[in-house]
């Protein structure tokens, strides 16, 4: 797991009162006019002459503590931040001596959390909702987007429930279209706001060139879905949202997290999707992440994936026989029915992706998506290296 932020770090000569965003560069010959808005990244020992004129100098220590040049604005970060590189964007919070890494150019994929508010309370929520006003995040995101590298292939916008931001959400999408025209945007949302035809229409009017919304659906039965997301009427609104989006020609993906409360009817859900929502662009069948609320509900949620491998294969098979695009995420190859392997993708964000000791001799390790870091808390009893 990467360290993506901290407080009480070593700051020197930073007089700003408010937090600010800065993009990092390692290019000491960066033209002068560009320097006042950027941060110069130094890894290891500080050179005798630093290039002048940068907004801030960010030094990542290696083994030993670094001596800081007292005359320039400096932030010293411990070695855990050694992954930082050219193009990354930091938020520097002077009052707390805090730093947060908002964007890493090399990250796969890149994601931005837009809000922690949510109108659902999923049993397995990996980002537990908070009932606070965090509209500052949306404002910060609008500042961040122009600093993001234009060649970033994909940006995932998550929450909480991003559409709760209303106009701010639409503004963020528009900013993505304007500043990052070549970046695919994937929004993760429960889709309910799109049941409002006007909102769906405004969303479509952004006319983003490469936009898709990933919407969870956990059962073919409304009561089961509403139970999993802990919200009455969720199923109906979510489906109406999907229908509105597709009527407007927008791309929609259906996401299903598989656990003890959803695996039994997984095949029926596949039948339901193939019959009623055949026009969606992609279906993702996903493994459980042991984080957030999942940890509190583990006994109600945990099931060894090997125990549902048959339901999972039948669901994949049914959807693909109807020529739908289907992928399996967050499952190790050794827990899947072999016939499902072609559908398994390497899907776990790099900063929380790991392999365990059992994987050392595995011949298909490169093809396998591995584990969430949080899987250390609980993972299948049947992990074993595949040795052909």
């Amino acid at each position, binding site marked *: 797991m990467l360290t993506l932020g901290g407080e009480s770090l070593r700051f020197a000569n930073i007089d700003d009162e408010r937090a600010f965003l800065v993009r990092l560069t390692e290019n000491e010959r960066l033209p002068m006019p560009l320097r006042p808005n950027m941060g110069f990244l130094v890894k290891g020992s500080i050179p005798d002459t630093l290039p002048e004129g940068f907004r801030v100098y960010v030094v990542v220590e290696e083994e030993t503590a670094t001596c800081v040049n007292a005359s320039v604005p400096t932030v010293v970060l411990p070695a855990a931040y050694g992954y930082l590189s050219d193009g990354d964007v930091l938020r520097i919070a002077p009052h707390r001596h805090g730093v947060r890494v908002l964007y890493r150019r090399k990250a796969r994929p890149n994601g931005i959390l837009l809000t922690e508010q949510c109108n659902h309370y999923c049993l397995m929520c990996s980002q537990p909702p*908070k009932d606070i006003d965090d509209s500052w995040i949306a404002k910060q995101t609008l500042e961040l987007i122009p600093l993001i590298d234009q060649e970033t292939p994909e940006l995932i916008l998550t929450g909480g429930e991003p559409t709760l931001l209303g106009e701010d959400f639409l503004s963020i999408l528009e900013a993505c279209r304007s500043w990052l025209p070549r970046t695919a945007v994937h929004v993760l949302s429960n889709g309910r706001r799109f049941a409002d035809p006007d909102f769906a229409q405004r969303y479509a009017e952004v006319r983003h060139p490469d936009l898709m919304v990933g919407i969870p659906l956990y059962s073919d039965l*409304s009561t089961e879905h509403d139970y999993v997301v802990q919200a009455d009427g969720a199923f109906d609104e979510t489906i109406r949202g999907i229908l509105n989006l597709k009527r407007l020609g927008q791309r929609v993906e259906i996401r299903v997290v598989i656990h003890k409360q959803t695996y039994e009817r997984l095949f*029926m859900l596949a039948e339901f999707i193939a019959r*009623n929502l055949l026009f969606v662009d992609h279906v993702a069948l996903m493994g459980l992440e042991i984080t957030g609320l999942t940890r509190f509900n583990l006994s109600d949620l945990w099931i060894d994936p090997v125990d549902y491998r048959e339901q999972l294969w039948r669901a994949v098979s049914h959807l693909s*026989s109807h020529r739908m695009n289907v992928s399996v995420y967050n499952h190790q190859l050794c827990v899947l029915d072999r016939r499902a392997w072609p559908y398994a993708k390497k899907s776990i964000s790099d900063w929380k992706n790991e392999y365990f000791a059992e994987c050392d001799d595995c011949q298909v390790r490169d093809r396998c998506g591995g584990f969430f870091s949080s899987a250390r808390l609980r993972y299948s009893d049947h992990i074993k290296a595949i040795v052909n």
Partner: protein
Amino acid sequence: MPSSRTPSRVRAYKVAIRFRPREDFEQPLSAGYRLLPFTFTPLNDHVYVATNQAGQYVILDRASLEDFVRHRLPYGSDAYSTLKAAHFLLDEDSDVALDLLALKVRTKYERIATFTGLHIFVISLRCEHACPYCQVSRQSNDRIAFDMSRETAERALQMVFRSPSPAIKIEFQGGEPLLNFGLIQYVVEKAKELNVPHGRDLQFVIATNLAVITDEILEYCKAHGIFISTSLDGPADLHNRNRPRPGNDSYERTIAGIDKVRNVLGRDKVSALMTTTQGSLNRAKDIIDEYLRLGFNRIFLRPLSPYGFAIKTKSYQAYDTDRWLDFYFEGLDYILQLNRDGLHFAESYASILLSKMLTPFETGFVDLRSPAGIGIGAIVYNYDGDVYASDEGRMLAEMNDKTFRLGNVHADTWEKIMTSDALLEPLESTFAGSVPMCSECAFQPFCGSDPVFHHATQGDAVGHKPTSSFCKRNMAIIRRLIELLRESEETKRTLMSWIVA
């Protein structure tokens, strides 16, 4: 990215954690459920097939069916959940079923708006074969009398583009259309020219016995992307007996022709259709083997059509529906065995039915549509300019029954033809949702009405379904397919793989 875990934030979640139990999301037990529209038909002696407006089906035994209709089905039981998810009932938990049902019904009927996609041009009646079951051909060299003229072709083409269908298939029929190849060339080129402002997806097919195909013809087909459809009734002895020609070498010429077409146009550019005659009925396996041998991966096991010379020579009465069904099921079983042995091979009629049973879509197959596919799905422009509601309607006319003649390209406008009583009357009267037995049949969404067939065999377009061989045939095949889909995962996957996207 997760938020950092500072103490104040952990405190915020601890207060919030409280999950509501499943029961909280369920409706009160007293609330009951409402039925959504559906009907049912016995599948066999034990269970029924129930289908809803969208053509989704559920299998139920009689007791469950009755409990369901009388509102005695227990909430949350397996049957209840299945029926709820399949949109057979509505309860207080959810009502998005109505939106989804309407969408599926709309999808099913979309083809009507697409309108006439298949346009058949009878390029010439001349033919050098003398097949006993043939409906229409003439052994004659009189080109003027039996070839379509340029003027007729041009007028017909104007009508083709009056159809709004985004995909237009022009099929050349006969007689033997290659005997008037010059006109085929004219139609192809003129059609492409007329299509420029329309931008439709234009396809051409020539239905030919391949006996007279030449390299020049093939080169032309290659240059213009034309498909070939030929007849292959089975092994040599069967094929030649069905299709006499001078020299008795129809089979040999067909095989040589298929080979040639594949080499020049490509292996997927030629398809074969068989015709069933009395001689075919105990040769199912041989016929399929012949298709296998020639590298085809589909076969359409067709019934004998009751039109034209077939009735004249009494070869239609020569066998009944039961015998044909035996033939069909023997073929189907053999094909399923081939699939179990690792080969991908499909039966086309079953594929069409399966598509209607398992997907929300209607197919382009005009003989299994309601409203019927006559005129609005396919239309025929005869060599003399007469317009017919279907190819079978043309065949009837050859026997002096012009019931399905809609007009003539030289005398009538497209509007007059498409709004003629000859077309609208049978379309309306045979709509399956309104006719006896069909209106309450669970298989209605998978079936269709065939006004021309019923008119030819029973004397009126609606027909008498209890004695209709069309009805008997379809019900038997649909029942068998439903049983097969229940039989095993493997059989189900095989059958689903036959559905053409």
